């Protein structure tokens, strides 16, 4: 009986674990980076964008080749009203994105938005086309 209960719990855990990985993969396998990104997101949500940027830059010093971190910083710069920086950072994220088409498409959409904010509608459309191609 005990044993069965164990198996039941194991099954539940396996399901939960599956859900977590399906939902959103962790941004890094390093706890330090995950913690810093959490801090950055919380700071960003609280309007403390400077602190958020500092935390992300700290994470990037640990993992400079992690495209998801470059994207986080790009998103933050967009929120800070720096579309030019946002665009460059998203492009930088793409250089490390490898075969991650989903991430690349998301970065192109971010670039499109950044270009729109700078009044470059043609550029924005071109970026959106790129995003489509990544599908």
């Amino acid at each position, binding site marked *: 009986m005990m044993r069965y209960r164990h198996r039941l719990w194991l099954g539940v855990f396996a399901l939960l674990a599956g859900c977590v990985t399906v939902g959103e993969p962790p941004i890094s396998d*390093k*706890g*330090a980076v*995950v913690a810093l990104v959490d801090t950055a997101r919380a700071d960003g949500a609280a309007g403390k964008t400077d602190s958020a*940027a500092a935390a992300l830059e700290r994470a*990037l010093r640990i993992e*400079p080749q992690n495209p998801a971190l470059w994207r986080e910083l790009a998103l933050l710069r967009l929120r800070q009203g720096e579309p030019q920086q946002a*665009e460059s950072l998203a*492009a930088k994220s793409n*250089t490390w994105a490898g075969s991650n088409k989903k991430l690349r498409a998301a970065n192109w959409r971010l670039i499109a938005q950044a270009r729109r904010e700078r009044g470059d509608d043609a550029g924005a459309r071109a970026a959106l086309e790129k995003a489509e191609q990544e599908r």
Partner: protein
Amino acid sequence: MTVGALFRGLKEYLTGGRLRLILLLLLLLLAAFTLYLDITIRAQFEGKRWALPARVYARPLELYPGAKLTPEQLAAELTLLRYHQVAAPEEPGSYRRAGEEFELLTRPFLFWDGTQNVLRLRVELDAGRVHKLRDHKTGAAVNLARLDPLLIGSIYPAHNEDRVLVRLKEVPQDIVNGLVAVEDRKFFSHHGVDPRGMARAAVTMLRGGAVQGGSTLTQQLVKNFYLSSDRTLRRKFTEILMALLLESHYGKEEILETYVNEIYLGQDGNRAVHGFGLASHFYFGQPLPRLTLAQSALLVALVKGPSHYDPRRFPQRALERRNLVLAELHRREFISPRQLAAARAEPLGVTTKPPSGASPYPAFLDLVHRQLRRDYDEDDLRSEGLQIFTTLDPQAQRAAEHALTRRLAELERARAMPAHTLEGSVVVTSAQHGEVQAVVGGRDTLFEGFNRALDAQRPIGSLIKPAVYLAALERPDSYTLATPLDDSRLVWKERGIKDWEPNNYDMEFHGRVALHTALANSYNVATARLGLELGVPQVMETVQRLGVEREFPTYASSLLGTSELAPIEVAQMYQTLASGGFRSPLRAIREILTVDGKPLQRYPLAVEQAVEPAPAYLLTTALQGVVREGTGQGLRQYVAPAVGVAGKTGTTGDLRDSWFAGYTGDRLAVVWVGADDNRPVQLTGSTGALVVWGDMMAQLDPEPLALPPPETIERVWIDPKTGRRAAKDCQGAVELPFIRGSAPKENAPCATAAPVRSWFKGLFGE
């Protein structure tokens, strides 16, 4: 006329209104003077009281599971930070080491993002990395922790006054008691002056004794604060008046706190040590609250004359004066007879050498100072007590210093050059963020003068070539890594300029060579011809796009690097290549806090795409070829080929300058070697700077350089003889990256047969 008549005359003259008028005038004058003093005093006391030097810190060492760190590196870092190695760490700033395991207590520190309190950590290292990081008490895993950062220098106020501000509650009671007992017994009851003390002093003076004493702490403060040191009656009068005024406005505690921070307590070269806070570090290497009774008494003893009683120069004199202070403390019943006996038995306890006020990294500090001056007034830098957090990595700095000093001496010996013929400089940055991690300005790394890394502009020679090849690779319709270049005799005629006829280093021509081979072997003639095809202005535009702010002349000879740059400018140019075509201004500063720890300014990471990813990728591949099979081959003695270093050698006319610029997955470094008087040093980039670069990187365990190829890149096998498409197993075939659609269309002769062979291979299951 008698004396009496004279008096009468005077009396008549002064009768009535006149006397009162004069008295009134005198009183008014006195009142005006007092008012003036009052304003002066209050302005100074309430406004900024001291000019505080800016403090400059290195990057804090980050600890986290997975961090690259050897036990030796951690031990070295802890030594730099003056952590004490003990059997059982109990105090912040102490640690225990057992092989690869460290137990340490961090010091509390106020960072940009808040205070990190004392952490008690257990760090387990394994295979060159942090394996586990845990809270020593609870055993709970810790994700991330920082050590307190190393203080690497200060930017001092005009008179080189240095101090560490302390609050009164941090001052040991023994010091307060000592000051009262020895300097001013009535301090807590008088109103600024002590008439009886003054009378005593006057009597001593009249009897022919020394001119001294009688001043209250308040008067001493006033003297230090506002007045010159000449001893006139008028000054004494002003001093008394000001002391009375000060006491009428401020409480005893405020006055005492100001006193303990103001008083002059020592000298270190041209740096003046002010206040008990700094004196504690200066004499004992300890923060003030941790001083013992005997140490506190010694500092009180110094008030009377820091140079006369200098415990390092005149230990006997200092000891006697300290014991006198102890005796006074006992006489005034501040300490018990047992305390007195114990403290008297203690040695002076001063450190043999004061912690130097001069920076151990003056060349790096110089860069920090220059970047600060863009945003801050020199006066503010020297007085506002700013806390400046920089990007200096002490490990990289040490590796760079070692490599440069060691290798230059070795080169001189090996080549029978007189010692100190050679000079050199190094700049190291983080490849992806453009943070400057190390600057070495010359062989004498402690020299505060000429900073070759920032100021020695030298012809860059072949270091310019990547810009020529990049300009070509940005036109994939015309140029690829496989494009044959013409390395035959070239005479360039331009109106108004002497004919230009470049030569190769080996004084030979190599005929048709593939573009990547011409760069790997640094062929001058092929490069010059390529640059002329592209247009010199176009190439120079590329140089600027990579981050060089200086404008180069558009003579043909500029293509071979006759223009001059300082190593830091070269680093900026190569930074853009190292980060895949994204330009980031080199930064030496991360954050600035105010004196009380409030965030003031951040220097954010900024990137700007300067080159498309695909040509940047191609160029990096070609620069890896330089190291794999070209002029940079010598690096293999220092750095494993698997690291895939991308780099370029540079040599200038008559072998005057030897350069190497290169990058790995995590760092970029530029090394220059030459002579200050610009005489030929008989070194090429490969025999000089490369050796320093390799030695340094070997110490830093570089990350492999493995850029993911951009989507538009495909790999194609090429027959080097014809520059056409080959098959994998064609003899001598090389696989090169191409921007899709740009690879040669025609097949080399061997390519047509090849697929058959591989088909057979597949058939027989080879």
